[in-house]
């Protein structure tokens, strides 16, 4: 069995497994998994930049929020339908990631990290500044009638799950195709040895920008879906914490692995959900995990799996 077909089998298998879980999971975990799938779309978007291109962005919350507010505000103030609003969200994430990318990618390393952080911070302040429209920190509800997509009521539990699964599957396949594409392989080359890649004649900036835009747009897609699926648009999603979370998920699951984001997001979500039953300070878990990861498992879960068992894992 060739690596390609193994890969294909594995990922189709994962998607089918998630579909199967739809019928067997108890309500709570069913709902959780729906959220996890949407958030791992966000994580997959982040992974393209962090895991595959080797760029550390601390500002992805800006793209997530761009998607969320792009859809939420158009519904609230322009009376868009869910379909148009969703599109608006993705487009605004696309535009913003293009702008931020074009600027931020002039820097590298530490500077890049701080620049992205600053842009995201400015974005958050902007949301608060235009509180008249965004309702500032309070945020606002997307009412159920506004959450009907192609006649599908997204507030219905099973619809939400299936739509989340659809989004997840689509993103999974896209990222899989992407990282196996020539473009994707160049990104990996850039991550591994930027100077060498340049001296092979690749326009590094163009490739990085491409990665940031795709990554930002996917993050925005996650943000837009999150708003529509869970009915709330709020400024906390634009705060630094929501830039750090995908980093945490991806590191935990395994940077530069296609399935890592899902694994990491699921693992972290349940870790916090469980630990919150024992300690009020459950974010301490996030902290400890981050430190331990850097110390002992920089590859993350799937990274280790790849290293030990499945070298062909993309």
């Amino acid at each position, binding site marked *: 069995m060739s690596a390609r077909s193994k890969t294909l089998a594995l990922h189709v298998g994962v998607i089918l497994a998630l579909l199967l879980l739809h019928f067997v999971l108890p309500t709570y975990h069913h709902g959780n998994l729906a959220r996890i799938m949407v958030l791992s779309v966000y994580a997959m978007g982040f992974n393209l930049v962090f895991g595959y291109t080797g760029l550390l962005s601390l500002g992805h919350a800006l793209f997530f929020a761009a998607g969320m507010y792009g859809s939420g505000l158009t519904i609230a103030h322009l009376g868009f339908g869910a379909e148009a609003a969703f599109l608006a969200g993705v487009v605004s994430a696309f535009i913003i990631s293009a702008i931020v990318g074009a600027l931020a990618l002039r820097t590298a390393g530490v500077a890049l990290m701080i620049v992205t952080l600053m842009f995201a911070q400015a974005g958050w302040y902007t949301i608060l500044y235009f509180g008249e429209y965004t309702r500032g920190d309070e945020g606002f509800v997307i009412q159920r009638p506004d959450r009907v997509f192609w006649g599908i009521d997204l507030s219905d539990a099973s619809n939400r799950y299936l739509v989340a699964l659809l989004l997840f599957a689509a993103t999974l396949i896209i990222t899989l195709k992407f990282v196996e594409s*020539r473009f994707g392989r160049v990104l990996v080359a850039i991550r*591994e*040895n930027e100077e060498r890649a*340049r*001296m*092979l004649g690749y326009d590094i900036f163009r490739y990085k920008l491409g990665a940031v835009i795709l990554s930002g747009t996917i993050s925005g897609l996650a943000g837009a879906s999150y708003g529509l699926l869970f009915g709330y648009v709020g400024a906390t999603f634009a705060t630094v914490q929501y830039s750090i979370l995908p980093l945490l998920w991806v590191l935990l699951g395994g940077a530069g692995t296609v399935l890592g984001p899902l694994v990491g997001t699921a693992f972290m979500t349940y870790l916090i959900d469980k630990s919150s039953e024992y300690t009020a300070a459950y974010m301490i878990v996030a902290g400890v995990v981050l430190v331990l990861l850097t110390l002992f498992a920089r590859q993350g879960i799937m990274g280790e799996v790849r290293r030990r068992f499945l070298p062909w894992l993309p």
Partner: protein
Amino acid sequence: MNLLSTKGLSRSFGGLRAVSEVDFDLPTGQVRALIGPNGAGKTTFVGMLCGRIAASSGRVIFNGQDVTAIPAHQRIAMGMAYTFQITSIFGRLSLHENVALAMRRRGDLSDAAVDEAVTDALRHVGLADRAGSMGGDLSYGHQRLLEIAVGVAQRPKLLILDEPTQGLTDGEIGEFNQLIRSMTGNTTILLIEHNMDVVMATADYITVLNFGQILAEGAPAEIRASAAVQAAYLGKA
């Protein structure tokens, strides 16, 4: 007709003039060796040729086009290939991928064609059987060969080899010399080299750089005979 030439090419770092007023011409199809003592400015000069270092003044003309202001990756795309002095391969990628990356950039090959060409290129440097292993797992000598294979794989008009035989065993050097000879005719080669045996074995013509300026140019025999060169270079060697 010259594939590459420079006019008054200079570069200074702070007060120090690493390369000054170099006029250099490299005819198509020639294997040119660039030699000179340490700190003669060879690497700086080559750096300016392929765009890794910006020139302070002067011009670089490649294939009839002034490329002085053109960024490195575009010069490569125009048909230059550069192999690093300190091996710089993709350590965590397979040999196959290392070479394939070089092939694909040209964009005119199907995946199948790339695979074929890669195997071909690896066979050329005798690494075909290692295609699957990671670049980082190779011995230093083999990494140098891979480096060269990557250069060759780009099917460049001009191949710039920066001290390619550094750290190679005599056996490997022999293979290298054959490799170079086998390419003469269809590829123009600029070879920065310390090992005079390699130079003498491969170069059609030699340029000697000293204190950032061209000290002498000529056929291997002439250079070997030149007193100035011996004083500046061979004497020390």
